[in-house]
């Protein structure tokens, strides 16, 4: 599903990732750990083509990401759901419209869009705020909207960057359960997190990065 070979990424000649190798099979649930600045976000960004690769190869569903034409990138992104560390919600659109966006982009019929959006909003528990603008939500609510958006189009791959950073323990547990359910339906899930509770709850493969290098890869194939 996701194959990362000898990937190196520099930011202004400073390496953010150095010779990273990682194979993630279809249907896996992988946790990405590591201290602040280890390169977790950078690795996820490479996967959804938000930043260019300097060395190595990344294959997603067999396609070489580096060789992708710019016009093909949107179609790759549509097969993924991404929970951004900084949410990236459209400030002038309602919660509903924000979550509907990935479906709108794909041209889904209106009634189906409606059903899926409401389902996603209910799954994260912010359906009662669907008319609000993101700025009118608390941080945890915004994060949940972002999660709803990432799962609304039933992605093949789900990438989540610190998805429970603004949530209390109870809520975090629910979100992890949600991810596990989605994973059980066949979606490959990759979650970057600092939250020990999340790691224990998932109890699956944990890849640890430090200073841009993979320093451990535990629980593979569990």
């Amino acid at each position, binding site marked *: 599903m996701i194959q990362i070979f000898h990937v190196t990424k520099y930011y202004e000649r400073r390496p953010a990732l150095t010779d990273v190798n990682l194979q993630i099979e279809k249907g896996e649930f992988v946790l990405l750990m590591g201290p602040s600045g280890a390169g977790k976000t950078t690795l996820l960004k490479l996967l959804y083509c938000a930043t260019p690769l300097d060395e190595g190869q990344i294959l997603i569903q067999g396609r070489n990401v580096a060789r992708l034409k710019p016009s093909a990138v*949107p179609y790759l992104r549509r097969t993924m759901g991404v929970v951004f560390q900084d949410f990236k919600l459209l400030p002038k659109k309602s919660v509903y419209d924000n979550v509907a966006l990935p479906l709108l982009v794909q041209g889904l019929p209106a009634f189906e869009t409606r059903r899926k959006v409401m389902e996603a909003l209910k799954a994260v528990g912010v359906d009662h705020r669907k008319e609000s603008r993101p700025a009118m939500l608390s941080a945890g609510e915004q994060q949940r909207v972002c999660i709803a958006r990432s799962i609304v189009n039933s992605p093949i791959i789900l990438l989540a960057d610190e998805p429970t950073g603004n949530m209390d323990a109870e809520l975090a547990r629910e979100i992890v359960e949600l991810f596990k359910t989605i994973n059980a339906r066949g979606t490959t899930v990759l979650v970057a997190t600092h939250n020990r509770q999340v790691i224990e709850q998932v109890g699956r493969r944990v890849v640890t990065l430090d200073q841009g290098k993979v320093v451990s890869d535990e629980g593979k194939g569990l």
Partner: protein
Amino acid sequence: MKRLIHFVREAVANIRLNRTTTLIAVATTAFTLACFGVFLLLYLNLRSMATSLQSDLKVVVYVKDGTPPPGVSDLQALLKADPGVQALAYVSKEQALADFRAQFPEESHLLQGLGDNPLPASFIITLAPAYRSPDAVRRWADRLKSAPGVEQVQYSRDWIDNLNTIVGYLELAAVGIGTVLSAASVTIIASTIRLTLFARRDEIEIMRLIGATGSFIKIPYLIEGAMLGVMGGAVSLAMLRGGFELFNARLGMPGRFLGIDSGFHFFSGQVAAMILVAGLLLGFVGSVVSVLDLGRAKS
């Protein structure tokens, strides 16, 4: 089709949501086009004034003294058949004398001592519009000079030349100012639209990350740009109309003194429509530029 509805709805939503920028973009476009419009209005009115002054041009064909009546009739027939002649009036020797007396009562003693009437008979000719340009008048007059029975062809060369110069200047100024104003309009409107989009580049980036294609993101902006442009055009027309009426009510009088009692005219429907279209195109081009710009900024 569904897409198009979405795009238009999105454009309208953007216009509504971004009140400040919309207002500024429309105001800027309106004022820019209004500047252009004031100039256009002035130019068109001056041109039509010049044209109406040109129609005042009379050419006098003096008949050779001693031409017998049949010769005069021949000349009249010749002139009537000439495509350059729109209207003609015959002034006999007697009438010429009477006219002179009436016009210059003080100088009439100059003619007192003369036994014979020294003034010649003449045809006063109004030229057809196509023959009114200074060059055409000159050519026409030169051609007629050699016709039988013609003593001399007279027209106010100064007047023609002055008018020529004035129209020439007008045209020159029109090209000059028109160019500057067009360039300014394009730059200003494109800049404003660009600035409004620039303020939204984060949103555009987010759309991209969600998997929106370039055209999906850009088309609403193009539509928005065109809409802003048309709105600007409409506002500028309203402003021009208002300003024009004010101007006309207050200061329309001098026109009559100059003998142009038709007064000033506002744009014809066609020109007004062209201004709207210009607004639309400028807005559209403005957003095309901005959108290309955004495309370059981030893959």
